């Protein structure tokens, strides 16, 4: 009996750590999609850029892992504004096909560029000593790095929740997600707001990409490989919903780890079946607005 409990704790813990990375990467996508309805298939590319930046910073510049994560957040967030202003902004009023094509194109270019500079093999990053090894959480020992990811995730959730629910700018974002035209009518500059959330979302994706190096593995195909997961989380959770993104991330993380642990041969089958089922019943996602 204790063995099965230990297995359950493992699944929940690993699933939660996995879910936190998925959440950190997906949350920006969810909010930008909710705000502008923009289908951004290049979001995974920003996460990948963050991962590679962390690899380069730690390896060639000798900067520590944690400061590198912060730098990746800032740098990718700033660069993403450039893309948003020059390319994305031109297609806000276009149909989703145009947006899909533009962003697939960007993702392809990113994959090619990173393959050219870093090669196709997986990259690793050396973790500081306080993040390696095991830590005892009472029931059993767990990898410290996973505990660190869960901690970072929890802190970010608290910050995002506060920013979203308790600050003026968060109220503006919520208003614009609910009804963009009405928000514009009362004088909210939705375009400015969007640029801001886009930068924040891309920065968070980069941070998540940095955290994902050790858990997902970082190759140039990262940009597309996990994109399906991010999109599933966003659409199952409901566009622009913080809570929905969190719930969907945890569902997907725990189910995926659990599925692989218990029924390895069925692979991701259950995940996709569940996704299709949820979307058929609730097309706007669990917490989305109909």
């Amino acid at each position, binding site marked *: 009996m204790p063995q099965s409990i230990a297995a359950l704790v493992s699944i929940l813990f690993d699933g939660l750590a996995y879910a936190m990375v998925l959440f950190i990467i997906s949350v920006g996508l969810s909010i930008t999609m909710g705000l502008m309805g923009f289908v951004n298939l290049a979001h995974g590319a920003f996460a990948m850029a963050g991962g590679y930046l962390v690899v380069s910073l730690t390896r060639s510049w000798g900067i520590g892992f944690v400061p590198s994560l912060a730098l990746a957040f800032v740098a990718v967030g700033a660069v993403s504004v450039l893309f948003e202003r020059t390319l994305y902004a031109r297609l806000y009023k276009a149909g989703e096909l145009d947006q899909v094509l533009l962003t697939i194109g960007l993702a392809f*270019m990113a994959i090619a560029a990173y393959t050219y500079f870093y090669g196709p093999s997986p990259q690793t990053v050396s973790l500081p000593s306080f993040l390696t090894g095991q830590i005892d959480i009472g029931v059993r020992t767990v990898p410290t790095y996973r505990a660190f990811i869960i901690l970072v995730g929890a802190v970010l959730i608290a910050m995002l929740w506060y920013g979203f629910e308790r600050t003026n700018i968060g109220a503006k974002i919520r208003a614009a997600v609910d009804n963009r035209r009405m928000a514009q009518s009362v004088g909210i500059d939705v375009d400015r707001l969007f640029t801001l959330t886009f930068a924040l979302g891309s920065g968070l994706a980069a941070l998540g990409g940095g955290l994902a190096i050790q858990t997902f593995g970082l190759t140039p195909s990262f940009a597309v490989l996990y994109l*399906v997961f991010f*999109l599933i989380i966003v659409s199952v959770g409901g566009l622009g919903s913080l809570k929905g993104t969190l719930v969907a991330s945890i569902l997907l993380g725990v189910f995926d780890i659990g599925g692989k642990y218990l029924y390895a041969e069925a*692979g991701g*089958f259950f995940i996709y079946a569940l996704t299709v089922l949820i*979307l058929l019943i609730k097309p706007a996602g669990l917490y989305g607005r109909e």
Partner: protein
Amino acid sequence: MAVSDAAPAPGAVSASASAPRARALEFMGRRHRFHLAEALPWILMIAVYFLFPDRVTFGTQVLIAIMFTLSLDLILGYAGIVTLGHAAFFGIGAYTVALLSARLHWGEPISALVAGALIAALAGFISGWFLLRYRGLTLLMLTLATAILVQELGNYRSDITGGYDGVPGMEIWPLLGLFENDLFGRTYYIYVAVLLLLIFYVIRRIVYSPFGQALTGIRENVRRMHAIGSPVHRRLVASYTLAAAIAGAAGALFAQSTAYATLGVFDFDNSAKVMVMLILGGAGRLYGAFVGAPIYMILEDNLAKLSPAFWQFGIGLLLVLTVLFARRGLLGIAEDASRYFKRKP
């Protein structure tokens, strides 16, 4: 175009009532009629057969890509259904042929092709019935997830499908019991070309029929189509089923001509690739597939060997530029250019 020059004569009331109708009929007839330029792709196809006898195997793959792209054109270009999972039907067609041959020891090509198209059509009908009630991001996600679902199912039962290593032991019998596929693949080139002609004819008829007009109407303004009482869902499902059947046929031909199929055919890359081919040539026009697919395939064949990274970068750049500057594809550019030069003199 003929609105101003056909103002009705003052006295002729009855004539003026039927004049618009006649004009409309004439307009439709003119569009529907066979143009001489339409023979061009087919002449090129015959020319390739004789001019590049050693490249006919590659030519066969190009023809299959055209067929696949054509099927996407029907739903994406005409009906406006944005799907990220069209490779599912291509894969179902390919796997029907592969499993019939490897597991049931039935390698007769034409019946296997028909079976592949029918099973893909069935899959298109069932999935379309459920999915086509949705639009936008939800539809994108549902088509994407459905394609992966099929792929995962194949991976789950890799004892039957052979998983990502491919179906082992495929054996395709000679065509019509007479024509063995020779080393240079000439038999299959002709076989695929004839089928492409047949399918193209069907699609051309459909596109110019009232049904095809209704599809275009749904693409342009779905609310208005609902308002005028068009059975939107039924028409979407019908076009989706047909496109699935054609994609299935393309997949079946792919499996037969290469005598191989792996779960890789279901990849998102494959769905994206066919979309790129269509957009490159021009979506929502009959000959977009005939321009986009060959150009893509020839570029890929030449550049991917040199450097896969450059090739992928190029495709990405091409997509971005197409979306920003040439929304109607290469054929759209050609059209604009010819109009520009016609106006000059």
